[in-house]
């Protein structure tokens, strides 16, 4: 039980450990907010599935330092991104940019969605038609059954 608690405590404290240390804070709250937003957009190149905001790898700390430095130097958010992109390529961005070689990546879900929706519409339509035809046949059968019963024919 104790062991389980320890494990749970460790699991839930991990994000707290990973957040950038207090010595990394910028004095200007507006700049700090921009820095934090940028950290979340930039990939830690040694841990890859984490942003530099999530990672406590030394290289991620260096990259955060660079981001703060660029912001203090008056760079716009786009300029900071471009600066790191020039060195690490598109990989450094958590969200891949929309461009020639990523079109498939961006369009595929849309294509699947449209295709799926079209499939469902087609399926429902054919089903409806089938049911309608079956209904009509049913009606005809019942009508003839009724007329038979009452001996009208």
């Amino acid at each position, binding site marked *: 039980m104790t062991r389980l608690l320890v494990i749970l405590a460790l699991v839930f404290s991990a994000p707290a450990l990973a957040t950038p240390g207090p010595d990394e804070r910028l004095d200007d709250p507006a700049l700090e907010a921009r820095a934090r937003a940028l950290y979340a957009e930039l990939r830690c190149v040694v841990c890859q599935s984490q942003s530099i905001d999530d990672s406590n790898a*030394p*290289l991620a700390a*260096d990259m955060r330092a*660079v981001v703060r430095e660029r912001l203090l130097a008056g760079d716009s958010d786009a300029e900071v991104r471009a600066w790191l992109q*020039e*060195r690490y*390529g598109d*990989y450094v961005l958590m969200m891949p940019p929309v461009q020639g070689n990523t079109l498939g990546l961006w369009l595929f879900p849309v294509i699947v969605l449209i295709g799926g929706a079209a499939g469902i519409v087609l399926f429902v339509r054919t089903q409806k038609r089938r049911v309608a035809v079956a209904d009509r046949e049913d009606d005809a059968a019942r009508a003839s059954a009724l007329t038979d019963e009452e001996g009208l024919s």
Partner: protein
Amino acid sequence: MTRLVLFVPLLLFAVMAVYFGLGLREDPSEIPSQLIDRELPPFDLPPLEGFDAGLSSRDLRGQVSLLNVFGSWCPPCAVEHPMLMQIARSGAVPIYGIDWKDPPGAGTAWLERNGNPYVRVGDDSEGRVAIDLGLTGAPETFLIDRAGRVRYRHVGVITPEAWRDTLRPLVEHLQSEAEQG
């Protein structure tokens, strides 16, 4: 026609299987270098403790050379070191070093203990030049041509195989290219 539609999922599966199959062959941790065929970013690093000369990007002009990034804290670098010593002894190509994020004195102690294969070593204690180089780890080695451009990047340990099959042929190719140019 309607029968053929039934094969669409199978076809989709086949396409995805091929795609992911190819993906398995790639190492996702290897981020392609942005520096290939570009000039080395300018830097001017101070010397390690006890050395006279640091390393500037200008030192890497006019000859084909290797630029090796290491750190005394990096276990694979210890594995790589004997290979660097061997390359240096063979005189095949000059090797320059960047000591990445080492505490003061650690790089010097490392070179005293393991031997010094480098013509010059720069001390990148802050790791800024490493980021300019787009470094993702240590060791990493850049092959620089005579014009000071990065022509190839080797990620990880230079194994004897990597040297024999990849780096040495590239070095020789660039050296002959340099002689002609």
